[in-house]
């Protein structure tokens, strides 16, 4: 499902990722662990085609970095769910609109959009706050909105960057359950985290990254 072959990423002469090889099978749940600044977010960004690799080759589903045209990128992104480390919510819309936006871009019918957005907000426990603006939410609440937006499209790949960073134990395990469930339904999940304990307690493959290299 996901493949990276000899991928390097340089930004202004700094090597952020070096010679990364990675294979994630369809339906797998993979943890990406590593200290702060290791390159986890950068790796996920490459898989989301927010950035192109300096060297090497990337494939996500049917999309390959060697063949992907710029105008195909939106199509790809609609099928990949991503939870950003810094949430990246649209500040000028309420959270219902933020979640619904991911459906609107796909041209989903209005009634279906509404139903699915509310369902997903309910799943992350925020349906009652649907009219709130992002800046009226606590950190953890914003994070859950970002999670809902990533999930609402039933993506075939889910990239989660530190999705539990601002959540307490209970909320964390709820969200984890949600991710597992989605994984069970066939979605490939790649989750970056700096929490070694969490990773150690989960029965999933763990990819360790440090200083831009996979160990």
């Amino acid at each position: 499902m996901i493949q990276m072959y000899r991928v390097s990423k340089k930004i202004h002469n700094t090597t952020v990722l070096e010679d990364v090889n990675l294979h994630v099978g369809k339906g797998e749940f993979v943890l990406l662990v590593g200290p702060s600044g290791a390159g986890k977010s950068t790796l996920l960004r490459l898989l989301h085609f927010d950035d192109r690799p300096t060297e090497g080759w990337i494939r996500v589903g049917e999309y390959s970095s060697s063949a992907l045209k710029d105008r195909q990128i939106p199509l790809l992104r609609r099928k990949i769910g991503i939870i950003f480390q810094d949430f990246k919510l649209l500040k000028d819309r309420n959270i219902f609109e933020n979640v619904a936006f991911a459906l609107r871009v796909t041209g989903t019918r209005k009634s279906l959009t509404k139903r699915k957005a509310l369902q997903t907000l309910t799943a992350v426990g925020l349906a009652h706050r649907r009219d709130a603006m992002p800046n009226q939410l606590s950190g953890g609440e914003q994070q859950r909105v970002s999670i809902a937006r990533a999930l609402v499209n039933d993506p075939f790949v889910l990239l989660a960057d530190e999705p539990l960073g601002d959540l307490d134990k209970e909320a964390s395990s709820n969200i984890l359950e949600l991710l597992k469930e989605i994984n069970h339904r066939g979605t490939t999940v790649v989750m970056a985290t700096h929490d070694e304990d969490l990773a150690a307690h989960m029965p999933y493959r763990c990819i360790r990254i440090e200083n831009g290299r996979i160990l």
Partner: protein
Amino acid sequence: MGLGYAFREAILGLYRARGMSLVSIGTTAVSLLVFGIFLLVTLNLYGIVGQVRRRIEIEVYLSDDIDDKEALDLKRKVEAINGVKEVDYIDKEKAADEFRQAFGEGLLEAVSQNPLPASLRIKVEDTFSTSDKIKEIVKQIEKRRGIEEIEYGRQWVERLDRLTLIVTVADLVIGLVIGLSSIFVVANTVNLTILARRESIEIMKLVGATDNFIQIPFLLEGIIGGTLGGALASAILYFSYNWAVVHFPRITFAPSNLAVALMIPLGAILGGLGSRISVKRVLKSLA
């Protein structure tokens, strides 16, 4: 994407960034207002210059030795000259009447014989009222027999020419500059409101929106904002022009409705173009 959605998004977009929207609509309105006022002033200015010119007359004094028949014959011939609009024949009697009206009875009665010459009073076509063209007409009349003197205030027509030329040039220069600057200002203002939402545009792209999906609401937003600005401008124009018409009837008379209404489509076009260009540029910088 349905147009309904895009339209709703555009309206919401204006509302969400209402502070900036108001500033931007206000700026658009003011820019168009300047242009509109310029247009109205120009229309009236040319109207008045035309009026002044239209009063230019050539007075052809006939010698006493041609009779009415010959004079009327001459009148017909003059009427055939290119650029001549109207010719009035003022015979000696009529000339005396006019003189009496202007200066009273006394003077004329003192002399035994009517000393005033008959004349042809010529009005020229509007397009022939410049000094050069008038000279040409005069040249063609001069050749005729029985003409004593031709008067048309050569110096004055030249002065008027000069002034008209200058007013026209000044008007065109100012008009060009105002027009270009309106375009520039409106486009730039829209640009600023869109640069301020760069982050939102970036997020939209990240969530899988195509460029068109992002652009179309912004485009509509620009068009709607521009239209509102234009409407505001034309409303202000409409009321202030009508006020001026009432209070300065002698210098405001040109029909204004078309020029006033023009501001609305102009605002729409400028707003739309400005937004289209800006969003394109932001999208390109994000690609």
